[in-house]
């Protein structure tokens, strides 16, 4: 069987898998960004009752493996009465894991905003919430976009693990095709290339574009 024939026979399944990977990627990214924002802000709170839960969350999710977290959420959480369907369990695990890393980026981004900006906002008598939302966060966002680009690549790679709880993503399809055809190089090789294209032809250019747009909005370009 030539490689072209392989693509003709199994291409559609790999495309379906890629779409599932894309869906996982989008859902997990949205969750990770939300968690990163909340946990990152909480970690900067002066009140220990707010700060400590964020620190515990971040340390637990960064201190253990994504795969362990995924299995825990999928196999153990039901014992506590929380049963997630596999698609949901997949992106929740990936989003919660990468969100913990993102929280550190949010914290770092906020701390990189010069002190003069805090003082200037305070000198205008802005409330703490407005100060954060209107003055500090927009600037922090620009500072932390480049590392977020790398983090989203890591997140994309992380989604491959959801295949292990039978979400029919790209990795899953490649494994199935390998199992039925034993054409390992073709199946896994094509999947590798598809992941690479997803990362370098979609995620990275999108982040570069976003960086340019944000830089322009902040008047730096």
């Amino acid at each position, binding site marked *: 069987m030539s490689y072209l024939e392989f693509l003709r026979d199994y291409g559609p399944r790999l495309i379906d898998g890629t779409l599932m990977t894309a869906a996982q990627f989008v859902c997990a990214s949205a969750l990770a960004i939300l968690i990163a924002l909340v946990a990152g802000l909480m970690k900067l709170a002066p009140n220990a009752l707010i700060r400590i839960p964020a620190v515990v969350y971040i340390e637990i999710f960064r201190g253990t493996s994504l795969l362990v977290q995924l299995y825990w959420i999928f196999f153990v959480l039901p014992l506590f009465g929380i049963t997630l369907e596999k698609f949901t369990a997949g992106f929740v695990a990936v989003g919660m894991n990468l969100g913990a890393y993102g929280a550190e980026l949010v914290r770092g981004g906020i701390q990189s905003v*010069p002190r*003069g*900006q805090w*003082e*200037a*906002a*305070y*000198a*205008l*008598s*802005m*409330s703490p919430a*407005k100060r954060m939302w*209107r*003055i500090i966060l*927009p*600037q922090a966002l*620009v500072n932390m976009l480049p590392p977020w680009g790398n983090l989203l690549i890591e997140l994309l790679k992380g989604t491959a693990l959801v295949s292990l709880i039978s979400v029919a993503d790209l990795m899953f399809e490649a494994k199935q095709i390998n199992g039925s055809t034993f054409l390992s190089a073709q199946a896994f090789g094509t999947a590798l290339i598809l992941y690479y294209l997803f990362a370098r032809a979609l995620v990275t250019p999108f982040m570069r574009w976003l960086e340019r747009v944000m830089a322009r*909005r*902040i*008047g*730096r370009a």
Partner: protein
Amino acid sequence: MKDLHDLSRYPLRLEGPDRPMVSFRNVTKRYGDLVVLDGLNLDVAEGEMVSIIGPSGSGKTTVLRMLMLERIQGGVIYVDGAPLSHMERGGKLVPANSRHLRAGREQIGMCFQHFNLFPHMTALGNCMEGPVQVLGLSKQAARERAEDLLEMVGMIDKRDEHPARLSGGQQQRVAIARALAMRPKVLLLDEVTSALDPEVIGEVTEVIRKLVQKYRLTIMMVTHQMGFAADISDRVCFFYDGRIEEEGAPADLFSNPQKERTQQFLSAVKSAD
């Protein structure tokens, strides 16, 4: 308990037509064990222009920062008759909470050495931010106010530029307009020309001169520019080691300083020029 006892010596309000716009009563500021200001007493009248000079580390910038950004460890600060550092609770003064501080500081504007304009907003956006978000003005009203002020500081042509595209002098003029947009009763100028190239200092001092001569705004200015301070101030305070070593009308203080430290400082500054 000692603090509370001490506080009873301070009036709840300063009354009367002659009351100062800003009043420091026995104010002490410490950073840890380091006493930066020790028992400062200073009154600034409405419409007065007071310049604060002194060597670095003398506490002169701290005077402004206590009004706008920091808490104090002793004494009371009044602004327009009402306590700022403290608030009234059951007929007694207690240390202010952050809400009271913020409300009191709405009456004060501040300009910084490094401008601190918001980089993600245009010149106009910078000047509208406080009025819209804090004072609750409509966008339209805030825009008109901001444009008037940008006109006054000569920056109306650059209203749609972001700070990154403005020179230091231009940024500082926008920063002055931003502070004035809050209609402050007191304006604090913290070394506003120190970070500027020599050739653009003039455009900023011209704006300040206008504020003093035309608008009679109450201004407290920390500066290294002795000539400018002598030129426009009603009064000059020389700070040394956390205290006012000597104060007076600029003509007296600059040409006939009484204290030895003032003489040393002024001759050192003069020889540096």
